[in-house]
């Protein structure tokens, strides 16, 4: 039986996948849209980390003389009604979006993984009860669930992260449970049991790493969703409060009345939200193709 030497085949096709850079170049050529998504996200992360180096004005300092100033050489994206520089607020706003996005994703996924893994691995009545609970949590749209949590917890940066993360738990628990159900029947789990490994250790050391691929695909898709929910909550005045320069809140301040008088207050923050979510969607699609070929689009 002949076998295919993938390295030789790839080398013949001009791909050098021996070095990490070569691998990246190969993936970027193979998935150009995914690479574009990664670049957009990288720009946002860069802006968030180095916000104080790439802006001149303080995003919080007000100046009545500059109220609703048009975009100019000094204030590239204009100023808001309190005379705050819109460019600086958008750059600093990346911190809020990413902090809420990654924070709630991290918290939601951690809870989801623990619940999904326990439910799938233990099976029986635990699984049945957890599945019903997930059904219940999934019977509300994400934003409505987040609204319910905000109504209960009150608007603040920390509560926004908690509210969104609770809304994210069911889907990650479901994905991990589905993978765990098939993995626990695999021979390597039986071997681990045979050599006397504890159930907890098998679940976390052997089963969990094998559920990572679908989880990464889900996490990328959900990063965009969390950013959109944060923006919507802040737009409604129920998310990240002042003085944080949240993109959603910037739009709520400038909503319908500035549509006529100061369109830059509407265009740029929305463009920032859409770009980062577009980036995560592009990257998510590409990662799904790489990591989960059965769902290839």
């Amino acid at each position, binding site marked *: 039986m002949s076998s295919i030497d993938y390295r030789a085949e790839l080398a013949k096709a001009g791909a050098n996948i021996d070095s990490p850079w070569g691998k990246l170049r190969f993936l970027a050529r193979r998935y150009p849209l995914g690479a574009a998504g990664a670049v957009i996200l990288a720009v946002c992360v860069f802006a968030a980390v180095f916000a104080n180096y790439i802006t001149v004005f303080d995003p919080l300092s007000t100046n009545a003389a500059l109220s609703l100033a048009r975009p100019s050489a000094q204030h590239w994206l204009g100023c808001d009604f309190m005379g705050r520089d819109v460019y600086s607020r958008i750059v600093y706003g990346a911190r809020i979006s990413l902090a809420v996005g990654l924070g709630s994703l991290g918290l939601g996924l951690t809870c989801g993984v623990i619940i999904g893994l326990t439910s799938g691995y233990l099976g029986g009545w635990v699984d049945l009860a957890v599945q019903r609970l997930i059904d219940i949590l999934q019977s509300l749209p994400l934003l409505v669930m987040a609204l319910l949590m905000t109504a209960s917890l009150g608007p603040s940066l920390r509560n926004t992260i908690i509210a969104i993360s609770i809304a994210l738990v069911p889907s990650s628990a479901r994905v991990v449970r589905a993978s765990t159900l098939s993995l626990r029947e695999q021979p390597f789990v039986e071997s681990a049991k045979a050599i006397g490994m504890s159930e907890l250790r098998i679940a976390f050391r052997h089963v969990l790493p094998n559920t990572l691929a679908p989880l990464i695909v889900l996490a990328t898709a959900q990063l965009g969703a969390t950013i959109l929910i944060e*923006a919507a909550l802040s*737009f409604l005045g129920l998310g990240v409060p002042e003085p944080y320069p949240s993109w959603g809140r910037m739009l709520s301040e400038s909503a*319908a009345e500035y*549509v006529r008088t100061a369109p830059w207050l509407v265009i740029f923050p929305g463009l920032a939200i859409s770009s980062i979510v577009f980036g995560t969607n592009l990257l998510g699609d590409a990662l799904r193709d790489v990591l989960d070929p059965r769902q290839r689009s």
Partner: protein
Amino acid sequence: MGSYLVRRFGLMLLTLFGISVIIFVMLRIAPGNIADILFDAAGFVDQAEKAQIMKDLGLDKPMPVQYASWIGGLLQGDLGYSYVTDRPAIHEILPRIPITARIAGLALLFAAVIGIPLGVISAVKQNTRLDYILRVVSLSALSMPAFWLGLLVLMGFVGYFGTIPIYSDAPQSFGAALVMYSVPAAVVGFRSQALLLRLTRSSMLEVLRQDYIRTARSKGASENVVNYRHALKNAVLPVVTLIGLEAAFLMGGLVVVETVFNIPGVARFLVEAIRWRDYPIVQNLIMYIAIIVVVVNFTVDMLYAALDPRIKYSD
């Protein structure tokens, strides 16, 4: 099928019971109840008066009693009183339902009429420039917050027509209502349209590879007959499911779009009630949303068997 239906119906009731408990508990653990809020606003606390208000609102009773009286009332159509307006909650909620229902219906219609044909075109023209454009546009639609799209549409109206299509008075005629609701409906439906496009495309691509499509082609059927009569008919099942799910989940988009367009519907009312901490309204509205979602999910499951004779739920 019979026993599946009974089991599925039982699960639906269980889910509704569970969500009602979650809604009730979440709103009870909120920091500060309405009595605290009223006194916060006044700036002083008269303990006797506060106790009287709590008694009047039933907040002094044990939680299970409060829950039972809420559910009991809900089953009889008594939703309690709004803390803010002091009117029966049902009188606040009922007149707003038709407004939101109209926008949701129009949004779904828009999504299906645009999304499904574009999905078919995208699949038939796979890997052509048109396909790439449609895919990028649909992905952009999924990335845009609905409230931003709404604001851009308002901006476009101001620029081109000099008017702003936000709700001011109740429309008097059918035509006026159609005009008034169709713009926000298109904004809400834009995202669903993109989802339908993507799903129709992938479902069509799968069907177009089937043997019976090749057979139809070899028998000389025209491209349109193959695509719309043979392929789409078989590709449409997951799309119908998604339309059902979107019908239930449109609320997320409606919440922000009603706010942008100043529409006095249920979704905007929910946001206002949360801001005022008018818990009887919040509690009942979220329960109402949950009932719609769960019932629609149940109906979609049942429709599955009706639409596709290959699916039979075993007894």
